[in-house]
Structures are given as structure tokens and as C-alpha cells.
């Protein structure tokens, strides 16, 4: 009897706990929608709920490097817009990759405004983590930013994010004292081999690898519907152009100077590296006075010197759908401010992120940046990186690994074509 009573008591306690949990959560979220403050806010907002029109808290996720900058800009914004003074804004350092995966895990607990790379757009939209821009904000964004970045923030005709940068691409950093002619891959490799130094390019990455295929004139893009689902794959890797590009990769991998990699801080004994602007300060430190940048070199594909292509990429600022109209207005206004030309220019000066805003791009300090100049030149040979299925990246790594491993070193054209045909079929299989 005693046991049964104890059991009943325990059950009652569990139910009581569960009931508390359910009640506490919505009460805390209604006014603020800010789970960060959930625990301490649980009792307080209930009393002030009717007056909670312009109070609450707002969470921003940006990469660590821009946390201080963003805090300062938010403070400036709040000062200029006292009507939002009731909101408490917190800025947390969360990298772009983490931000996207956290948002996909739990939109509700995620940040209200977050920084992400544009290749995550499709996933974020289909997870309901992004709210579309109002027509007027969309018009401002479209008018003030370069076409590539606006296209990157748009899906199915709707603008879902605020462009922050157009500096996410890759080009060549090199050591002037070693590499005499950065315009041809063969010449670069010859110089590196002669000096006993290495040429780094991460050809087993789905991001760097298309430099060869796109350069040769191949296509690989996916069409998505408004909900972010992949409907169609446009690819022609299994062609003479594709075989030519693959052969060029095999030739590169055969060189003793070749190293697979794309990070200056992880590279050793470098003479040249294909990398992006995020590594510019590390590259400057590494090469010292011999630091130089250039667009990607040309490579011999099927007998003609062909310019390497690749992806252009963009950083975007997204706003999470909100239940509270006043807070949404603040989020939109703040995101628009943080992505405006002046702030983009200030961001470039503070942390070196290359702007997407047309006016900021024309600023002399941006124009004088060697890395951004090289990237700007390279971007004209690239396609804006659209949406790709997650499986594509693994597939591209497998292809690159086979090349690096020497699997195709003695292969004839028919074998290479067959390998690319299988790659192409798999890519098509990811759509629909």
C-alpha cells in the first residue's frame, strides 16, 4: 500500500512539473520571443504584458571577427532611433556555418538576425528561418547592391536576405620572389617546383573544383522552387569540355609542387595558394614584402589556354520570422541599417569584408585593396554560387580525392568520360 501511494505521489509530481513547464514557456516567449532570456524572464513579463509593445530582447549572430563592430553599429542605430530603446539587443559570436545549422535545428531558439553564407539560403527558406523582405526594403536592396549579391539573396523571385559582402570568392595569392608569371598555371607550377615550394589548391572541394569545370565552359547549377526544393539539375560535365577540365586537374595533381589545401594558416612552405579574402591578413603576414594577388591563372584545356572560373559568393544577413509586428519592424530596420552602404564601408575598414554595396565598392580605400582588386577581376569569370544539395559537396570531394590519389593518372578519355558521366548522373539524381 505504501509503495502504491509513493508511486502515485511521484506521478503527481511529474505531472505538476510538466504542467509548469508548458505554462512557463509560452508566457516567457509571447512578449519577447527571446528564449535567451527565458529563465529569468519567466515571471517578470506576465505583469507588464499589456505594455510590452516596444520592449523585448533581440539576438544577433555574427562571426566573432565582427562582434565588436556589430555591437558598436547597433549602439549607433539605437541612439539614432530612440523609439526602439525598449529593446535589448545582444550580439553573440556564432560563425556562419554554425548559425545556419543552429537555425535549422531550432528556429524558435535561433537568433532574430543572423549572418550566413548564401549557399545556405535554400535550406534556411525551406526551414522557415527567413522572412521575405518588405517590398520597399527589397527595392532599396536591389538598387544599392551589385547584381550578383542581390541574385544570391533572391529565390524564386523573392528577396529573402540583406547582402552584406561580395567578397566570397577565390583567387591567387602568391610570393612575388618565387612566382614570376601568375597568369599561367604551368608557369606557376614550374616556378614552385624550381624553388622547392608548394602550390596550394583544394581541388577535392566542391567549392574550388568547379574552377576547372566552369573555366572549361561546363555548367552545374540547380533550379529550385519557391520552397527551396531542388527541381532540376543543369549539368554538362560528361562532355569533351569536362574531360579536358578533369585532365587539367590530373596534370595539376601530378606536379610534385601540388598540395591540396586552401587555408594559409594550415599551409606550410607556400609559394602560391588559391584562397579567398578571409585569409588576406594571414597571407600578408606569410609573404611579407613579397605578397601579391592575382586573378586565377589560365590552364591548358584541350590545347587552348583557358581562364579558370569558379564560384562567386556573398555573405547575407537574414531576419527570422517574428510573431510580434513591432519587433519585426525593428529587425527589418536594423538589418537594413547593418547592410547599408556606410556600414558596409565601415565594416570593410574595421574587419576587411569586401562590400556588395555599389557606392561602398567605389570608395578609394576599397579600390586600393590588392586582394579585393584581384577578386573583383576574378569575379567576372565566375558564376554567382546558387543553391546546391548537401550531397553535392561529398560527391565533389570523392572525385577530387580520386584525382589526388592518382586513380586516373593513366586513364584514357573514355574512362574519364565514364567517371564524369557517373558524376553527372548522380548530380541529376539529387534533383526532384
Amino acid at each position, binding site marked *: 500500500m505504501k509503495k502504491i501511494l509513493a508511486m502515485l505521489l511521484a506521478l503527481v509530481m511529474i505531472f505538476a512539473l510538466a504542467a509548469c513547464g508548458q505554462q512557463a514557456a509560452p508566457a516567457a516567449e509571447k512578449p519577447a520571443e527571446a528564449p535567451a532570456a*527565458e*529563465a529569468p524572464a519567466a515571471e517578470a513579463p506576465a505583469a507588464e504584458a499589456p505594455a510590452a509593445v516596444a520592449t523585448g530582447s533581440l539576438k544577433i549572430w555574427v562571426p566573432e*571577427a565582427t562582434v565588436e563592430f556589430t555591437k558598436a553599429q547597433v549602439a549607433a542605430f539605437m541612439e539614432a532611433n530612440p523609439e526602439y530603446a525598449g529593446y535589448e539587443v545582444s550580439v553573440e559570436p556564432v560563425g*556562419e556555418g*554554425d548559425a545556419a545549422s543552429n537555425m535549422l535545428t*531550432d528556429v524558435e531558439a535561433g*537568433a532574430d538576425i543572423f549572418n550566413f553564407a548564401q549557399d545556405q539560403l535554400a535550406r534556411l527558406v525551406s526551414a522557415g528561418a527567413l522572412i521575405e523582405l518588405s517590398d520597399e526594403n527589397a527595392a532599396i536592396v536591389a538598387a544599392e547592391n551589385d547584381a550578383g549579391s542581390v541574385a544570391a539573396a533572391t529565390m524564386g523571385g523573392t528577396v529573402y536576405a540583406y547582402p552584406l559582402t561580395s567578397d566570397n570568392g577565390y583567387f591567387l595569392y602568391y610570393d612575388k620572389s618565387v612566382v614570376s608569371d601568375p597568369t599561367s598555371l604551368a608557369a606557376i607550377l614550374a616556378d614552385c617546383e624550381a624553388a622547392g615550394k608548394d602550390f596550394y589548391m583544394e581541388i577535392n572541394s566542391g567549392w574550388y573544383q568547379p574552377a576547372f569545370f566552369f573555366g572549361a565552359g561546363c555548367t552545374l547549377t540547380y533550379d529550385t522552387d519557391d520552397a527551396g526544393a531542388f527541381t532540376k539539375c543543369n549539368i554538362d560535365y560528361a562532355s569533351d569540355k569536362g574531360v579536358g577540365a578533369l585532365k587539367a586537374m590530373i596534370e595539376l595533381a601530378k606536379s610534385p609542387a601540388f598540395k591540396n589545401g586552401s587555408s594559409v*594558416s594550415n599551409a606550410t612552405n607556400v609559394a602560391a595558394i588559391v584562397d579567398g579574402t578571409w585569409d588576406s591578413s*594571414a597571407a600578408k603576414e606569410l609573404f611579407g614584402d613579397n605578397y601579391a594577388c592575382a586573378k586565377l591563372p589560365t590552364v591548358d584545356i584541350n590545347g587552348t589556354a583557358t581562364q579558370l572560373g569558379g564560384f562567386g559568393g556573398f555573405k547575407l544577413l537574414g531576419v527570422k520570422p517574428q510573431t510580434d509586428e513591432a519587433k519585426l519592424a525593428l529587425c527589418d530596420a536594423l538589418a537594413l541599417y547593418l547592410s547599408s552602404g556606410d556600414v558596409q564601408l565601415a565594416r570593410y575598414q574595421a574587419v576587411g569584408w569586401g562590400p556588395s554595396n555599389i557606392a561602398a565598392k567605389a570608395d578609394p580605400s576599397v579600390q586600393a585593396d590588392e586582394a579585393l582588386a584581384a577578386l573583383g577581376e576574378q569575379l567576372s569569370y565566375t558564376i554567382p554560387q546558387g543553391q546546391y544539395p548537401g550531397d553535392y559537396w561529398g560527391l565533389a570531394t570523392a572525385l577530387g580525392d580520386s584525382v589526388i590519389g592518382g586513380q586516373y593518372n593513366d586513364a584514357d578519355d573514355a574512362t574519364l568520360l565514364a567517371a564524369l558521366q557517373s558524376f553527372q548522373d548522380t548530380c541529376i539524381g539529387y534533383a526532384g
Partner: protein
Amino acid sequence: MKRKQRINNTICYIVLILMSIIWLFPFVGLVLQSFRGESGGMVAYLIPHEWSLKNYQYLFGSGSKFLKWYGNTLTIALFVAILQTLVVICVSYALSRMRFRGRKALMNIWLVLGMFPGFLTMICLYFLLKTLGLTESGAVPGLILISVASSGMGYYVCKGYFDTVPKALDEAAILDGATRAQILVKMIIPMSKPIIIYTALVAFMAPWCDYIFASYVAFGYEKGYNVAVAMTRWVWTNDYQGFFTRFCAGGILVAIPVTILFMCLQKYYVEGVTGGAVKG
């Protein structure tokens, strides 16, 4: 005969020395890198060109939240070590000494449940903790709760040890008028020092090295990170340029308390493992 032995010894030592070089290399590398002063990134050489303590200074400086993360990890690990040991002792004692209906079934169910890797339930647990407000700013109590809640299932080794303590002692104590609780506290526990230390050490190590749960529960809230989650970000070169040497320095600091703990308690550790295994 003597010559043959000498040759054998020589070969053995060469193999052992080679193995220890391979085994020690990463640790030596870690220590040396943590004192490197010139640049923060990865380099091809092992011996720093410039010796410096600046990586450690950075960790303890105001620009870094390292102490906060370290404190979080330590808090979680200590609480888990204490609470989990208490739970495990109680469960083991009950299962070892008492006979009640469903005892066998309970032990079997726990055995089967223990087969599932804990992180299978990660998403469910995350949402459960979120409802209770124990994620993000509540990450530290949340992580303690996760570890302690499931700790009763790890009773095996401890119960095995208790089984080796003769039941006749219990009976003698009962004749003298001792209660079950008194038997546990006054007799079993003093005789089971090795297994208790073993349990506490194991309980301490799990949250000390935890990454998966910690990263989920903290959910981007930096002040709720433990060292593993926070420092992993330092090797992602895109956002953290030149943090590699700081990462090494942090790694050394993380290793120190565990090393000291194991050195001091090594004796009990071995006794605990072997003692518990006799009748486990």
C-alpha cells in the same frame, strides 16, 4: 645465451623507443606550439623560433572568455562527479544487497538501454531542456542534469565490487541493530574507497570531454560553452585566424587537472577496475 638475450633486449628497446616517439610526438608538439611567439597559425617546424607566454596571457586576459568556459566545464564536471557517484552507490547497493520483485528485469532493461549511444536522444533532450529553460543561458545546469539523470544505469562495476563484500558482514550488523542506511554508510562505503574513486573519476571525465551535448545545449550562447565547444571554433580558420597556438595552450590547461587527478588517484583506479570486475 647471454648474447642472444642482449640482442633480444636491443630489438625490444628499439621498437619501444620508436613507439614512444610516435606516441609522444603529438603531446610534445602541443606543448611546444603553445609556447610559440611568432605567429598563431600552423607551421611546418616544431621548435618555436621565439618563445613566449603570450598565448597563455591571451587565455587569461580580458579579451578571452576562456576562464568562463573553463569554469563552466569544471562546475559541470565536479557536480556530475559528486552527484553521479552518490546515485551510482545507492543503485549499486540496492541491487547488490536487496532482493525485490523485478530486480533482474530492471537490471536487464538498464543493460539494453545502456546499449544505445546517448546522443541518439540528443534532439529530444534538447527540446525537453528548452521547455525547462535549461538551454543557452541555462546550459550549465542543463548539462549537469543530463549527465546525472542517466547515471544510475552505470552501476555495473560498482555493484560487482559490492558483491565481493561478504554478506555475513551485513548480517552481523543487522543483528547489532544497524539499519540498511547505516550498513551502507558505516560499512560498505569505507570498504569501497577504490570503486568510489573510480566511479567519481569516470563521472568527472565524461563531461570534461563532452562536445556533442554541450554544443547543442549551449546553442550559440557563448557564456554557456564548455572548453571543448568554445575551443573547437579556434581551429576553424575562416573565423579565427592565427588561433592555433592559443588552441594548443588551452589544450594544455585542460589536460593539467585531469593529469594531476589521475596521477594522485591512479592506485585506486586500478584497484577499482579490477576489484569490480571479479564478480561483475
